[in-house]
């Protein structure tokens, strides 16, 4: 569990950019979507999510927009900025290279 948390810490930003890249999302939706798409592997805590979202917003990678729902509730939807999109493309490529290299080491050599 501790190792998983360690891996998560370095990947949170990439995961959030990826998800928000699919469609604009609000915080609670991001957590549920992350859990669903990873089949329960990623279980991001709320206390981690919002600081991460705010960091990305301050860095200009995502932008939040408030929407008022018919119930009167306000939700902040985050969408990717152009800068966020270019960073996401870069990160996807980095992850692909990383996974390819890891697989070469982890997978047993074919006989």
């Amino acid at each position: 569990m501790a190792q998983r948390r360690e891996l998560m810490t370095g990947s949170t930003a990439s995961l959030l950019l990826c998800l928000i890249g699919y469609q604009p999302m609000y915080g609670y939706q991001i957590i549920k979507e992350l859990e669903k798409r990873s089949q329960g592997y990623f279980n991001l805590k709320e206390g981690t999510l919002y600081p991460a979202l705010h960091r990305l917003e301050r860095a200009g990678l995502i932008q939040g927009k408030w929407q008022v729902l018919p119930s009167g509730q306000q939700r902040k939807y985050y969408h990717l900025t152009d800068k966020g999109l270019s960073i996401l493309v870069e990160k996807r490529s980095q992850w692909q290279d990383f996974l390819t290299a890891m697989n070469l080491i982890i997978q047993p050599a074919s006989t």
Partner: protein
Amino acid sequence: MSHYLDSVRHNLRLDLSSEREVITELETHIEDRFQELREAGLSEEEAAKNCEKLLGSTKLVARQIYEAHSQGTWGQTLLASMPHLLFALLFALNWWQGIGWLLVMLGLVLATVIYGWCHGKPTWLFPWLGYSLLPVVTAGLFLLFLPKGWSWLAILIYIPLALLLLYAIIVQTIKRDWLYSSVMLFPLPIIIGWFLAIESGERFPELSMQRLNDFAPWIGLSFLALALAVAMFIRLRKRWLKVAVLLISGLLTLGMVAYYTKGMLGLPAFLVLILVMLGLFLTPALVERKIRRGDQRVSDAKGSHCN
């Protein structure tokens, strides 16, 4: 859950509009999560407890969100350092000799403070606010030059009003964040140090113009040091680093004043100034704690009254 959000709010220390947004976002999230847990069959109490557990420690959440917002932009950094830079120029270029420049500076400081105060008290406002308090203090000192009898009468009326104004401004600043109050009061011991080194003669406060002229470049340098310290303060994210920068740079700048005045500032005065600096630094933190305890008691009393 409102208790949880209140606790986050108390620890956030952001400007009002950012604070409102953060709290609204967390509140909406809590409502969604609460509904999910209720639909899963949990009681209201269990659902509320689970929500709090999932969100985590209020202090940790608030601190991490604060750190996401705490680093000022380069524009804000420049604005915050500006009053110190302008005073540095005033002395380095000997503009202090012209009353016109002094009036321009005073006008600029007051206009900036009024603008910043009415526009959400942004981070860059607080160094300017510190300089805006100087005329209040200086006006009190100049009342001593009124004709005999009148000066003491004027001071007796002036001091309570001045203290009330200073207290109101300081408390408002502390409510925003005690660190900003320290930033606001930061140059005061340095200015007092220079004043004591320059002041000569038995009658207070006779300024030695020659000394002021001699020390002007070093006065400018000390204000430049303050500008650098404030710039670092604005750019740093972590709160403990901001505290360290203010404390260390304040003590170093005081040391600079003692060194460049070549013994004019005696050791006892220097030590008193260090104590004044530490006092001005720590007192806002203690006052904030007291204000929060008071607010907490009022909040608890309201909660038990509703129950």
